């Protein structure tokens, strides 16, 4: 069995990575874990932008303290706006797209509606200098097959006015994920890759599940995940945030 040491982790030649997907694709977990990994692996700064304008709960901003402790800068609404269910687009994001140090990761929430925010910024993305990655989860109703995945990607690309440059296979069922589910999602992602011509950048999955399987079956990079977006009953041995 392959172990974590043999993983090829994701690496990027571009300095901007936008992670996009529908509800439940797991883009927030992927964004948070990718930012943590890059901050740890590379000696360069990482900035994570919370562009989830449609989900009221379980957003990147909930992991701010954890991220900042690891040296990741998080850009998200603060103060009274932290809890708002309003589409707040921070003006500094435009500036970050023009100029930033190190890697810039954007966590773009919620399907085509959520990606309208990205559309208003589409002109600011430096041509050829960013990756726009679709996060696929074959256990979500709208991306359960190739046709549904392509249709969802077309809707998102339409409202974000940015073409996709690659795919991420993040098929999961939260705590019910197993190796068979990962493989099912990987097969779908390869089929979507074949149909769309977009490369599969990496597979992301819970580290505990990866440890149970032969990861050499994945021909691409792998990002092991540690869950950050926990439900209240999963938060053991910690006190209330307030």
């Amino acid at each position, binding site marked *: 069995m392959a172990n974590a040491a043999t993983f090829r982790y994701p690496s990027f030649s571009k300095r901007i990575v936008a992670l996009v997907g529908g509800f439940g694709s797991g883009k927030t977990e992927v964004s948070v874990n990718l930012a943590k990994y890059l901050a740890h692996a590379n000696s360069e700064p990482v900035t994570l932008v919370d562009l989830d304008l449609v989900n*009221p*709960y*379980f957003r990147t901003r909930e992991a701010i303290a954890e991220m900042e402790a690891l040296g990741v800068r998080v850009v998200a609404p603060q103060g009274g706006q932290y809890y708002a269910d309003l589409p707040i687009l921070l003006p500094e994001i435009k500036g970050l797209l023009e100029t930033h140090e190190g890697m810039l990761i954007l966590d773009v929430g919620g399907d085509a509606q959520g990606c309208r925010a990205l559309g208003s910024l589409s002109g600011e993305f430096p041509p050829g200098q960013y990756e726009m990655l679709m996060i696929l*989860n074959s256990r*979500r*109703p709208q991306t359960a097959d190739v046709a549904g995945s392509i249709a969802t990607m077309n809707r998102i690309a339409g409202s974000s006015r940015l073409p996709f440059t690659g795919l991420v296979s993040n098929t999961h069922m939260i705590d019910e994920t197993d190796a068979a589910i990962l493989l099912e999602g990987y097969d779908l992602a390869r089929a979507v890759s074949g149909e769309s011509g977009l490369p599969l950048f990496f597979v992301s999955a819970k580290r505990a599940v990866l440890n149970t399987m032969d990861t050499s079956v994945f021909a691409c990079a792998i990002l092991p995940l540690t869950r950050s977006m926990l*439900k*209240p009953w999963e938060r053991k041995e910690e*006190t209330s*945030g307030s």
Partner: protein
Amino acid sequence: MAKKLMKGNEAIGEAAICAGALNYFAYPITPQSEVAEYLCWRLPEVGGTFVQAESEVAVGNMLFGAAASGKRVFTTSSSPGISLMQEAISYIAGAQLPVVFVNIMRGGPGLGGILPAQSDYFQAVKAGGHGDYHLIVLAPSSVQEAVDLMILAFDLADKYRNPVMLIGDGMIGQMMEAVEFPEEHRKPNDPTGSDWALTGAKNRKARITKSLFLDPVMLEENSFLLAEKYKTIKKNEIRFEKYKVTDKNRILIMAYGTMARICQTAIDELEQEGISVGLFRPVSLYPFPEQDIFTESTRKNIEKVLVVEMSVGQMIEDIERCLKGQREIDFYGRTGGIVPTPNEVKDKVRQMLGIKK
């Protein structure tokens, strides 16, 4: 059917379709707007109808009219929106119409906030509108249970010709969990043979669906009829779940919805410390499992009962009523969108037993 990963709000919408309920009226409000977002594309796929009303007041009245046709109808909303529907809910109960309401509760009073709360217990269980009536109230603690209870809600509404309300804190609507739906969708019910639905009075006497009875004798008759119905509901429809309830328990916790799951984590961790605590989770909040709560709470080793809610204390009043002074009752609650952690529950239990950490 393979399990799917769904947000609670989407799953509640899909469950209604499984139940053959294809008539949905709603107005968006956080944290339940995804029900409408889901059903606005999903209902047309199965021949259903979604009308986005101009307000929740309009939603309530659309439900009254549509339910009178004998078809399955429902709405979903969150706390302030449910408040706006109270007048129509009272009329619907008075006219004995089957309607399913879903309240994905947020913090109040007033506009409050958008984070999870359980502070609409009184409104749901004690009937927030005017008059002598009750809703059947069901409280799921997981997305799967929300699906199962949503389907049950339509069956109960039809069986008793009574409005049913499914209440979940914001977490039920917003969290993602793996769910399974029944293979077969129910066919939309055919009200042709109904003895009350308004199906067109051709070749029969016209029917009138109303909650207005100016003659006091008839109004009293209607209220007695409802009261009889509630007695039957109390006899037949009590639902609850117990977790680690044994004769060793020193404390019995009472909690419903996702709050119960937080208490389960606390109970598991307290067990590791050698402190035996059980959980009683009412699933039907009306009818309330009065007798079972009394029986389980008065087991010989139980010293105290702890009620835990995401409110400043509402269900506790019903627990007090059930226990008739037989056990000391304590309370722990957070509100406004703050959700108690397992650790807070553990600290409360230790404090009640005089145990230092």
